[in-house]
């Protein structure tokens, strides 16, 4: 049993550090300033570089450190992951691209052909992160009016069509959402290995669909007992896929150093933002609603958001993105990851801000301390106790 480690691509750019997590000074999503890079300026003129040049560095860092590849997330306000993956394809050698997309926005036959071409460009380095849920205004921003539970039915059809044309066809399909006549990928594009499917979604409808289509059921980090319950629910409803967890990591040699980084970043969090977060509801998203259930009831300081040892629920206040992440010493973060491995997690999508420097830190500081599954540890004998 092996574990895959992915390192996220910061599609919205990166801060210089978590101390300035509110300002993505790498990339062009924050207003340009004297600290901006990619794009930056030379003698007052634009230097012609862009976020993609920085993403190349991040991807190459992750690749050189042995990460399996990277998740390229998809948001209304960021570059398209298919396009970024295609651009990074020739800049990397073994790095795999986990492309995030929502079936509603893309014709499944076109998705199949894009995937096959990207597979050919990269020697088969494409994986899918299929997103179905979410909801509220962002969904309509994309022009998607289909209701939450129907979206899972659509995802199922989408994958049926994609698989149908994958090996060449001719393929006919007449469903609720899609219709195809005589479809099929052409010649050399047909019959390539089908991408691994990472499937997200916390609702019952999502879990149902995951069982039919997913190689990996992907969750955000939650406290370990919540993840255990979630994974059990997936196991009950389906032929169980593998489990994957996406985690922000802030690890330093000592726990004090790690929390000091959070403390400095927290100086930029406005009190009214904390109050708003504590009274937030999750909209259509089961995942967000689940995360909100673990928030502290009252607030006296940022450590209140450490809802379990090393599990910090305050990341969403410091930067856009999921609430939970791990904060602590290399030892502590390795222990938390080992707990998740024991829970049955077979794949991690790790992230840190900035993704470039933190890739080295996690790979050099945390990964060597991982001990793997409890059963493996027992077989290989006792391991020296940790500080």
């Amino acid at each position, binding site marked *: 049993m092996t*574990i895959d480690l992915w390192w996220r691509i910061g599609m919205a750019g990166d801060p210089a550090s978590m101390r300035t997590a509110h300002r993505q000074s790498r990339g062009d999503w924050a207003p340009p300033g004297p*600290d901006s890079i990619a794009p930056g300026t030379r003698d007052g003129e634009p230097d012609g570089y862009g976020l993609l040049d920085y993403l190349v560095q991040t991807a190459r860092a992750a690749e*050189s450190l*042995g990460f*399996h590849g990277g998740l390229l997330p998809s948001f209304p306000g960021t570059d398209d992951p298919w396009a970024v993956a295609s651009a990074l394809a020739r800049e990397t050698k073994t790095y795999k691209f986990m492309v995030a997309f929502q079936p509603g926005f893309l014709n499944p036959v076109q998705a199949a052909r894009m995937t096959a071409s990207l597979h050919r460009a990269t020697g088969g380095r494409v994986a899918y992160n299929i997103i179905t849920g979410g909801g509220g205004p962002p969904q309509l921003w994309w022009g998607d009016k289909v209701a939450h539970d129907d979206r899972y039915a659509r995802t199922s059809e989408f994958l049926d069509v994609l698989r149908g044309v994958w090996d060449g066809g001719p393929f006919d399909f007449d469903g609720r959402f899609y219709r195809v006549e005589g479809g099929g990928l052409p010649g050399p594009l047909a019959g390539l290995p089908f991408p691994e499917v990472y499937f997200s979604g916390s609702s019952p409808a999502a879990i149902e669909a995951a069982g039919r289509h997913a190689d990996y059921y992907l969750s955000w980090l939650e406290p370990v007992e919540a993840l255990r319950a979630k994974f059990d629910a997936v196991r009950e409803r389906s032929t169980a896929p593998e489990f994957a967890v996406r985690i922000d990591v802030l690890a330093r040699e000592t726990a004090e150093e790690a929390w000091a980084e959070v403390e400095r970043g927290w100086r930029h969090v406005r009190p009214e933002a904390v109050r708003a977060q504590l009274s937030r509801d999750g909209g259509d998203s089961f995942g967000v609603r689940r995360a909100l259930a673990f928030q502290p009831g009252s607030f006296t300081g940022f450590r209140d958001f450490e809802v379990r040892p090393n599990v910090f629920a305050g990341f969403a206040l410091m930067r856009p993105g999921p609430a939970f992440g791990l904060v602590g010493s290399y030892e502590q973060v390795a222990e938390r990851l080992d707990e998740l491995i024991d829970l049955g997690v077979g794949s991690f999508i790790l992230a840190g801000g900035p993704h470039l*420097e933190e890739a080295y830190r996690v790979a050099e500081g945390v990964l060597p301390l991982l001990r793997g599954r409890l059963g493996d540890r027992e077989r290989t004998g006792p391991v020296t106790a940790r500080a």
Partner: protein
Amino acid sequence: MSAPRIIWTIPTRGDGPRARGWAAAPALPPFIRDGRAGGPPPTPFDHLHQISRAAELGGLAGVHVPYDPFGEESLVVSASLGRDSRFLDVVAGFPAGIATPVYAAKLSATLQRAFGGRLGWRLEVELDDRVQRAQGDFVTGADRYARAAEFLTVARAVWHGRDVDFTGRFYEVVKGGFTGPLAGLPFPPVYLSGTSDEALALSAEHADVHVFDHAPDDELDRHLARLDGRVRRALQAVVHAREEEAELTAGPGLRGTYAQVADQVEAYRERGFDTFFLSADPALEEVLRIAQHLRPLLAGRA
């Protein structure tokens, strides 16, 4: 006053405590599927490029590839980094003993063509005798300065001239000189260093820039007083800059909070230094720190 030029030092014998780019990358625990499996082996240069690309994206003026007989060869590294950037000056360190001046000039002409005239020469003269002998170079003492002067004279002569004849103590050339596309390129700016009388005399004749090691002010002033006024001044220092004083560790060089280090650089600017050869370990993380925290302060004061 224009912003100071920061030239970042490329560690050609490994970066950081794990000597990235020199030692093999650490293996992952056996239960983790290694993403590198099945791919071509990584090259040690991959990490050097990560550093120079960070310097390039970070708006620094250049990189310095030091001469280190125990590290990667500096001209080859310079060629590689120069091709992989658009703006960086690439200052290659080497001593005269590595080649004839004609050959060094010819190789450099190709590098100027390869990356559009961004090559600089950091000619190293005062190497350790034992190191030099191990490289097959037995010129010692003050002769090294005489040879360096001849080296630069011959290199410039063949670079700019035709039918160059030269007879000296160390080199002899008959009908030398570059032709065709190799002719007419900008000669690499010459960076020299050292504080002996011979070193400063060599600079007066041949240097575009003289590089001084970080030293106490009064000591530096004594050296500066002996430097020819036409030669530009550069400082070489380890830099250690952090957001808060409490985060600093003790050591030599330019050190302090970002604002304090900017003050220190500014003080050198006022004493006529326009170029700063800076280094820190790990070079990748630290160059990004300098680019995003120190450079904006310096630009703001320029």
